[in-house]
Protein backbone atom coordinates (compact mmCIF):
# COMPACT_ATOMS: atom_id res chain seq x y z
CA UNK A 1 0.00 0.00 0.00
CA UNK A 2 1.40 3.40 -1.00
CA UNK A 3 2.52 5.94 1.58
CA UNK A 4 -0.01 8.53 0.31
CA UNK A 5 -2.83 6.30 1.54
CA UNK A 6 -1.50 6.78 5.05
CA UNK A 7 -1.89 10.55 4.99
CA UNK A 8 -4.45 11.61 7.54
CA UNK A 9 -4.40 8.23 9.26
CA UNK A 10 -0.87 8.10 10.63
CA UNK A 11 -1.80 9.63 13.98
CA UNK A 12 -4.63 7.11 14.39
CA UNK A 13 -2.30 4.23 13.52
CA UNK A 14 0.34 5.40 15.98
CA UNK A 15 -2.16 5.82 18.82
CA UNK A 16 -3.62 2.38 18.10
CA UNK A 17 -0.17 0.75 18.02
CA UNK A 18 0.77 2.25 21.38
CA UNK A 19 -2.60 1.44 22.96
CA UNK A 20 -1.48 -2.10 23.86
CA UNK A 21 1.40 -0.87 25.95
CA UNK A 22 4.43 1.45 25.97
CA UNK A 23 6.62 1.18 22.85
CA UNK A 24 9.71 2.82 21.38
CA UNK A 25 9.83 4.14 17.80
CA UNK A 26 11.08 0.94 16.18
CA UNK A 27 8.62 -1.12 18.23
CA UNK A 28 5.75 1.04 17.03
CA UNK A 29 6.70 0.56 13.38
CA UNK A 30 7.09 -3.19 13.94
CA UNK A 31 3.72 -3.41 15.66
CA UNK A 32 2.03 -1.67 12.73
CA UNK A 33 3.89 -3.85 10.25
CA UNK A 34 2.95 -7.06 12.08
CA UNK A 35 -0.72 -6.17 12.35
CA UNK A 36 -0.97 -5.17 8.70
CA UNK A 37 1.08 -8.09 7.37
CA UNK A 38 3.63 -5.61 6.02
CA UNK A 39 1.03 -3.99 3.74
CA UNK A 40 1.79 -0.43 4.86
CA UNK A 41 4.99 1.10 3.55
CA UNK A 42 6.32 4.15 5.31
CA UNK A 43 9.71 5.78 5.68
CA UNK A 44 10.21 4.69 9.26
CA UNK A 45 12.00 7.89 10.31
CA UNK A 46 8.88 9.89 9.51
CA UNK A 47 7.05 8.42 12.51
CA UNK A 48 9.19 10.58 14.83
CA UNK A 49 7.83 14.00 13.75
CA UNK A 50 4.35 12.50 14.16
CA UNK A 51 5.25 11.19 17.62
CA UNK A 52 6.57 14.64 18.60
CA UNK A 53 3.35 16.22 17.38
CA UNK A 54 1.19 13.79 19.35
CA UNK A 55 3.33 14.31 22.43
CA UNK A 56 3.08 18.10 22.01
CA UNK A 57 -0.70 17.76 21.81
CA UNK A 58 -0.72 15.87 25.12
CA UNK A 59 -1.89 12.60 23.54
CA UNK A 60 1.38 10.77 24.26
CA UNK A 61 3.93 10.91 27.05
CA UNK A 62 7.48 9.62 26.77
CA UNK A 63 10.46 8.82 28.92
CA UNK A 64 14.01 7.56 28.50
CA UNK A 65 15.00 3.99 29.22
CA UNK A 66 18.05 2.02 28.15
CA UNK A 67 18.43 -0.91 25.78
CA UNK A 68 21.82 -2.39 26.48
CA UNK A 69 24.03 0.70 26.39
CA UNK A 70 21.72 2.66 24.10
CA UNK A 71 19.26 5.34 25.17
CA UNK A 72 15.71 4.52 24.17
CA UNK A 73 12.66 6.79 24.22
CA UNK A 74 9.48 4.94 25.12
CA UNK A 75 6.01 6.34 24.36
CA UNK A 76 2.74 5.63 26.11
CA UNK A 77 -0.82 6.92 25.76
CA UNK A 78 -2.07 9.61 28.10
CA UNK A 79 -5.68 9.81 29.26
CA UNK A 80 -6.35 12.36 26.49
CA UNK A 81 -4.67 10.01 24.02
CA UNK A 82 -6.96 7.13 25.01
CA UNK A 83 -10.00 9.38 24.64
CA UNK A 84 -8.81 10.56 21.21
CA UNK A 85 -8.18 6.95 20.12
CA UNK A 86 -11.69 5.92 21.16
CA UNK A 87 -13.15 8.82 19.19
CA UNK A 88 -11.02 8.05 16.13
CA UNK A 89 -12.08 4.37 16.25
CA UNK A 90 -15.76 5.33 16.28
CA UNK A 91 -15.30 7.78 13.40
CA UNK A 92 -13.28 5.24 11.42
CA UNK A 93 -15.92 2.53 11.83
CA UNK A 94 -18.60 4.91 10.62
CA UNK A 95 -16.45 6.02 7.68
CA UNK A 96 -15.51 2.45 6.73
CA UNK A 97 -19.17 1.40 6.92
CA UNK A 98 -20.24 4.24 4.67
CA UNK A 99 -17.49 3.52 2.13
CA UNK A 100 -18.36 -0.18 2.14
CA UNK A 101 -22.01 0.59 1.56
CA UNK A 102 -21.23 2.89 -1.34
CA UNK A 103 -18.48 0.94 -3.05
CA UNK A 104 -19.52 -2.68 -2.46
Amino acid at each position, binding site marked *: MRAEVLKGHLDFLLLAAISRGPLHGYGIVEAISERTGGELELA*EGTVYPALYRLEGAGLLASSWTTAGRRKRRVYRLTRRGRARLARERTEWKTFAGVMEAVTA
Partner: protein
Amino acid sequence: MIEPYLADLARELKARGVRGRSAARVLAEARDHLVELERAYGSIDRFGPSERIAREVAAQLATTRTFRATYAAFAALALTAAAYLVFFASINQGSGSPDLFSARHEAVGVAVTIGLVLFPQIAFVAGCLALFRALRLRGGSAVSAEELLVIRRRAAVA
Protein backbone atom coordinates in the same frame (compact mmCIF):
# COMPACT_ATOMS: atom_id res chain seq x y z
CA MET B 1 26.56 2.57 7.86
CA ILE B 2 24.88 3.99 10.95
CA GLU B 3 27.51 6.55 11.96
CA PRO B 4 27.71 8.26 8.54
CA TYR B 5 23.91 8.41 8.42
CA LEU B 6 23.75 9.98 11.90
CA ALA B 7 26.46 12.48 10.93
CA ASP B 8 24.37 13.45 7.88
CA LEU B 9 21.23 13.72 10.00
CA ALA B 10 23.05 15.88 12.58
CA ARG B 11 24.28 18.18 9.80
CA GLU B 12 20.80 18.43 8.25
CA LEU B 13 19.21 19.16 11.62
CA LYS B 14 21.78 21.84 12.40
CA ALA B 15 21.22 23.45 9.00
CA ARG B 16 17.53 23.76 9.91
CA GLY B 17 18.14 25.26 13.35
CA VAL B 18 17.55 22.08 15.39
CA ARG B 19 20.32 22.07 18.00
CA GLY B 20 21.04 21.24 21.62
CA ARG B 21 18.70 18.93 23.50
CA SER B 22 16.20 18.70 20.65
CA ALA B 23 18.88 17.50 18.22
CA ALA B 24 20.36 15.14 20.82
CA ARG B 25 16.96 13.53 21.36
CA VAL B 26 16.31 13.06 17.64
CA LEU B 27 19.76 11.57 17.12
CA ALA B 28 19.46 9.22 20.12
CA GLU B 29 16.10 7.94 18.91
CA ALA B 30 17.41 7.58 15.36
CA ARG B 31 20.44 5.62 16.60
CA ASP B 32 18.26 3.22 18.57
CA HIS B 33 16.00 2.71 15.54
CA LEU B 34 18.87 2.28 13.08
CA VAL B 35 20.62 -0.31 15.26
CA GLU B 36 17.39 -2.34 15.42
CA LEU B 37 16.84 -1.96 11.67
CA GLU B 38 20.34 -3.07 10.78
CA ARG B 39 20.06 -6.05 13.09
CA ALA B 40 16.72 -7.13 11.61
CA TYR B 41 17.19 -6.34 7.91
CA GLY B 42 20.92 -5.77 7.42
CA SER B 43 20.12 -2.33 6.03
CA ILE B 44 18.95 1.05 7.28
CA ASP B 45 17.27 2.17 4.04
CA ARG B 46 13.79 1.80 5.51
CA PHE B 47 14.46 4.73 7.85
CA GLY B 48 14.29 7.20 4.96
CA PRO B 49 16.60 9.96 3.67
CA SER B 50 18.23 12.06 6.41
CA GLU B 51 17.29 15.28 4.59
CA ARG B 52 13.59 14.38 4.64
CA ILE B 53 13.61 13.31 8.29
CA ALA B 54 15.45 16.49 9.33
CA ARG B 55 13.05 18.67 7.33
CA GLU B 56 9.95 17.09 8.89
CA VAL B 57 11.40 17.12 12.40
CA ALA B 58 12.44 20.77 12.08
CA ALA B 59 9.00 21.76 10.78
CA GLN B 60 7.28 19.94 13.63
CA LEU B 61 9.53 21.40 16.32
CA ALA B 62 9.11 24.91 14.87
CA THR B 63 5.34 24.47 14.95
CA THR B 64 5.35 23.29 18.55
CA ARG B 65 7.70 26.09 19.66
CA THR B 66 5.68 28.80 17.89
CA PHE B 67 2.40 27.62 19.39
CA ARG B 68 3.89 27.48 22.89
CA ALA B 69 5.38 30.97 22.47
CA THR B 70 1.99 32.25 21.29
CA TYR B 71 0.18 30.79 24.30
CA ALA B 72 2.85 32.24 26.60
CA ALA B 73 2.55 35.65 24.91
CA PHE B 74 -1.22 35.62 25.31
CA ALA B 75 -0.92 34.59 28.97
CA ALA B 76 1.52 37.46 29.54
CA LEU B 77 -0.91 39.79 27.76
CA ALA B 78 -3.77 38.68 29.99
CA LEU B 79 -1.62 39.26 33.09
CA THR B 80 -0.64 42.71 31.83
CA ALA B 81 -4.29 43.55 31.15
CA ALA B 82 -5.21 42.48 34.68
CA ALA B 83 -2.37 44.58 36.08
CA TYR B 84 -3.65 47.55 34.04
CA LEU B 85 -7.12 47.16 35.47
CA VAL B 86 -5.79 46.93 39.02
CA PHE B 87 -3.56 49.95 38.40
CA PHE B 88 -6.37 52.17 37.13
CA ALA B 89 -8.81 50.94 39.77
CA SER B 90 -6.31 51.80 42.51
CA ILE B 91 -5.77 55.29 41.02
CA ASN B 92 -9.50 55.94 40.94
CA GLN B 93 -9.86 54.83 44.55
CA GLY B 94 -6.90 56.94 45.63
CA SER B 95 -6.44 60.47 44.37
CA GLY B 96 -9.04 60.34 41.60
CA SER B 97 -8.57 59.99 37.84
CA PRO B 98 -5.15 61.07 36.60
CA ASP B 99 -5.36 64.22 34.48
CA LEU B 100 -2.48 63.58 32.13
CA PHE B 101 -3.34 66.58 29.96
CA SER B 102 -2.50 68.89 32.82
CA ALA B 103 1.08 67.64 32.85
CA ARG B 104 3.80 70.24 32.85
CA HIS B 105 4.54 69.42 29.20
CA GLU B 106 1.25 68.94 27.43
CA ALA B 107 2.80 67.07 24.49
CA VAL B 108 4.18 64.46 26.85
CA GLY B 109 0.77 64.11 28.47
CA VAL B 110 -0.91 63.57 25.09
CA ALA B 111 1.73 61.02 24.05
CA VAL B 112 1.38 59.12 27.32
CA THR B 113 -2.40 59.08 27.02
CA ILE B 114 -2.25 57.80 23.46
CA GLY B 115 0.24 55.18 24.55
CA LEU B 116 -1.89 54.08 27.49
CA VAL B 117 -5.03 53.83 25.39
CA LEU B 118 -3.80 52.77 21.96
CA PHE B 119 -0.90 50.38 22.58
CA PRO B 120 -2.82 47.98 24.85
CA GLN B 121 -5.55 47.75 22.22
CA ILE B 122 -3.05 46.98 19.46
CA ALA B 123 -1.42 44.37 21.69
CA PHE B 124 -4.78 42.84 22.55
CA VAL B 125 -5.91 42.58 18.93
CA ALA B 126 -2.54 41.18 17.77
CA GLY B 127 -2.47 38.69 20.66
CA CYS B 128 -6.01 37.52 19.95
CA LEU B 129 -5.31 37.12 16.22
CA ALA B 130 -2.15 35.10 16.96
CA LEU B 131 -4.00 32.93 19.49
CA PHE B 132 -6.99 32.28 17.22
CA ARG B 133 -4.73 31.33 14.33
CA ALA B 134 -2.68 28.99 16.55
CA LEU B 135 -5.84 27.38 17.95
CA ARG B 136 -7.24 26.91 14.46
CA LEU B 137 -4.09 25.18 13.25
CA ARG B 138 -3.25 23.10 16.31
CA GLY B 139 -3.59 19.33 16.25
CA GLY B 140 -2.77 19.09 12.56
CA SER B 141 0.55 18.24 10.99
CA ALA B 142 3.45 20.69 10.80
CA VAL B 143 2.35 24.19 9.83
CA SER B 144 3.94 25.94 6.84
CA ALA B 145 6.75 28.42 7.43
CA GLU B 146 4.54 31.24 6.12
CA GLU B 147 1.77 30.50 8.62
CA LEU B 148 4.29 30.28 11.45
CA LEU B 149 5.77 33.64 10.44
CA VAL B 150 2.32 35.28 10.62
CA ILE B 151 1.71 33.84 14.10
CA ARG B 152 5.19 34.83 15.33
CA ARG B 153 4.79 38.41 14.06
CA ARG B 154 1.41 38.84 15.75
CA ALA B 155 2.73 37.37 19.00
CA ALA B 156 5.73 39.68 18.77
CA VAL B 157 3.47 42.72 18.34
CA ALA B 158 1.40 41.58 21.32
